[in-house]
């Protein structure tokens, strides 16, 4: 069952920018595109751990600040010749409010504990 919690308002995030949300499974980067779409992905580049929230946002993509891999915000997949992916998280918009599904995060955290 989903558990949508408010993480902030659209205006908290600059257009073509990102903010972070702290979670038990690490930081999640929440992006806002030029067209005001919002996306959430893991804030950790699969290459060498670069904080993707610090990258340049273009279209529905972000370029990692450390070595310039490019990721799709929709699918989480690395673009072009690079291979890899980040986990994506569902978001909901209710007017200005941005909501994240806390249950998905809990499930991910539980899966990680189970694996350890």
């Amino acid at each position: 069952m989903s558990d949508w919690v408010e993480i902030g308002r659209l205006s908290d995030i600059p257009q073509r920018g990102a903010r972070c949300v702290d979670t038990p499974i690490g930081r999640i980067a929440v992006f806002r595109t030029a067209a005001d779409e919002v996306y959430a992905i893991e804030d950790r580049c699969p290459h060498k751990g670069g904080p993707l929230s610090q990258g340049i946002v273009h279209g529905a993509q972000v370029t990692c600040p450390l070595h310039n891999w490019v990721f799709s915000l929709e699918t989480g997949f690395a673009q072009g010749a690079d291979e890899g992916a980040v986990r994506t998280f569902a978001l909901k918009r209710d007017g200005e409010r941005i909501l994240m599904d806390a249950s998905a995060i809990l499930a991910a955290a539980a899966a990680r504990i189970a694996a350890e």
Partner: protein
Amino acid sequence: MNNGLTDMTQKLVVVGAGMASGRALEHLFEAAPGAFEVTLFGAEPRGNYNRIMLSPVLAGEKSYGDIVTHDAAWYAENGVACRFGETVTKIDRKRKVVVSKGSETPYDKLLIATGSAPFIIPVAGKDLPGVMAFRDLDDVNAMVEAARKPGAKAVVIGGGLLGLEAAAALKLRGMDVTVLHLMGHLMERQLDPAAGYLLKKELEGRGIKVHVKAQTKAILGDGRVEAVALEDGTIYPADIVVMAVGIRPETRIAVDAGLYVERGIVVSDQMVTSDPDILAVGECVEHENVCYGLVAPLYDMARVAAKTLIKEDAAFRPVETATQLKVTGINLYSAGDFADGDDREEIVLRDASAGVYKRLVLKQNRIVGAVMYGETSDGAWFFDMLRKGTDIAEMRETLIFGQAYQGGSPLDPTAAVAALPDDAEICGCNGVCKGKIVSAITSKGLTSLDDVRAHTKASASCGSCTGLVEQVMKLTLGDSYNPAAVQPMCTCTDLGHDDVRRLIKAKGLKTIPAVMQELEWKTSCGCAKCRPALNYYLVCDWPDEYADDYQSRFINERVHANIQKDGTYSVVPRMWGGVTNAAELRAIADVVDKFNIPAVKVTGGQRIDMLGVKKEDLPEVWADLGKAGFVSGHAYAKGLRTVKTCVGSDWCRFGTQDSTGLGIRIEKFMWGSWTPAKVKMAVSGCPRNCAEATCKDVGVICVDSGFEIHFAGAAGLDIKGTEKLGLVASEEEALEVIVALTQMYREQARYLERIYKWAKRIGYDEIRRQILDDKDRRKAYFDRFVFSQKFAQVDPWSERVSGKDKHEFKPMASVGFAEAAE
């Protein structure tokens, strides 16, 4: 006399050092070197230059040095006695002497090439200071000077070729420009109303006001121009008024000498006036009732006059001329006669979305006029048929679509040029046809555009045929020559950095979306390669107007610290010239303790790096550093990094100057400026060079006699010693030179291109010429840098301590912790 040479050497006096006489002398010396002993008078205090190019000079796209056609060495080589700055006031035909400044110079043959004088409309106020023409370099300098004043206003009277080139250039210089034009549409002599309308719209889009049907009533002002009043009551405030309403042949000395003069000095087909020993060429001339105002026919006259002087047969024949407006970003071509008429038909093509308009006027299946706006690549082809009177009945249906559509050949500009006959004219100014270019390339083994210019003169005057010339080169040289070898900025566009930079200026684009829209970016919002580049170009070009787009900056420049491999940051405060003191060191020590900063290191740039700072802590770290007087060291910036110094004359037994002081002075003057790539400098107190100045972007080596300025060194990915720019005597001058050099680099380089790469591309000599030799230009660069610093020299750390971009440093929310604990 027994010396045969002296017997034969005749004295040729030339009055007027302009475009026509320059060309005539070239022909003369080439055909019969030594046949004449030449004295050249010029009213302007300088030799021959390419007057056509005054427009790009005014626009700041070229410098005076770029347009000089004959330099001192050339005159010396050909034994020309130069009398520049000396106006000939009288010709005494009986005694065969010319009079100037009270002295007399005898001639055997006289060549009058006095050009024309700008026409000044006879209204009240026309003599007020601030009213100027657009004819020579002095006019250009006066306009550039006036444009320096922020917010200065220019009114250009005359919406013809000259007036519009002036208006566009002054606008580029930042002036507020209004064009007043008497007729109903712009350039009515060359354009029909539709093309005139498109042109007006384009200019208005660039922020130039255009008032057509404007009848000037008076120029107002008390001791100086203040405004222009029109008959309809409109008043336009003005700091300068540029009169560009036309020209009249400069015939005064010819009239006084009793030569036959109508509108111009009347000449025969051989360019001889009513006095057999006096020839005339150029705009001052009238031939078969026609006076000319474009260079192509004047060059023909020059060729004929040279032949006549050496007693060879030649005759001048009137020619059709085509017109192009030399305003970057505007494509406009017109040739022939396009008035309506019963015996005429026309073909029109419009593409409103692309801003294209083409019109051909036909008479008995022959082209008599052509106007093109927006897309002009077929201009040469139409013009060729116009001049030859080609019967176009066969291709009437598809004619307007251009050459590429004929005979089913593909739409490829090279194919279009390939199809041109050998005698098709490529360069209108110099009358160079395709065959001549091809044969010069093959017979002389030419491989570069500059070679072709030097050997054929094609594209060497107004430059608008450069594309065509390059096509011919490509055809002749095959794949070894690729004019389109421009590296696109990134996959979002086909344009290269240089084109983008030029178009940003030319089209007055002031936001990233405007650039992407106007230059047809292929992506909706660019990528991590083009966005930072565009942001820099806009910051550099419009320092006062452009709002820096932080989302287009790399993270380091957005949060003003260097991101590290683990996502933490490093903090490097400025230590001016590498000098510090106990209080500063204590403040750093306290900060390191308070925030548990894991590493402290002395950098290669003579300052201290604190590494491993958490992003959330940055504002507080800066707040503490700020209290001790530190500002950001921009160790992350495409901007001024460090100015390394040595101890210099303060302490060192070899020091010749205060190298530490100069380094600090430079750093304090220049910090905060954004540059295409990082800029590092150093000042060494003597040639032992302990500050390693000779591998920096800019370096200074102090010597007893002053300061040796070095530039274009590298010591990173490449290793390269600097080039010497030159020696200056004072600290003031050293600072001005360094700042001007940096500004030139800021304005010209491609994003991420270090100084050494840019300098190699532009040419070291060119930089020396612009920065060391051309003092006016140097000053202008300096002033532009100082202006942009007003907006750039703000410490980014203290801004953020005061709350700017708070969102960057704090997570937005926490999710899932409470639940996870359950």
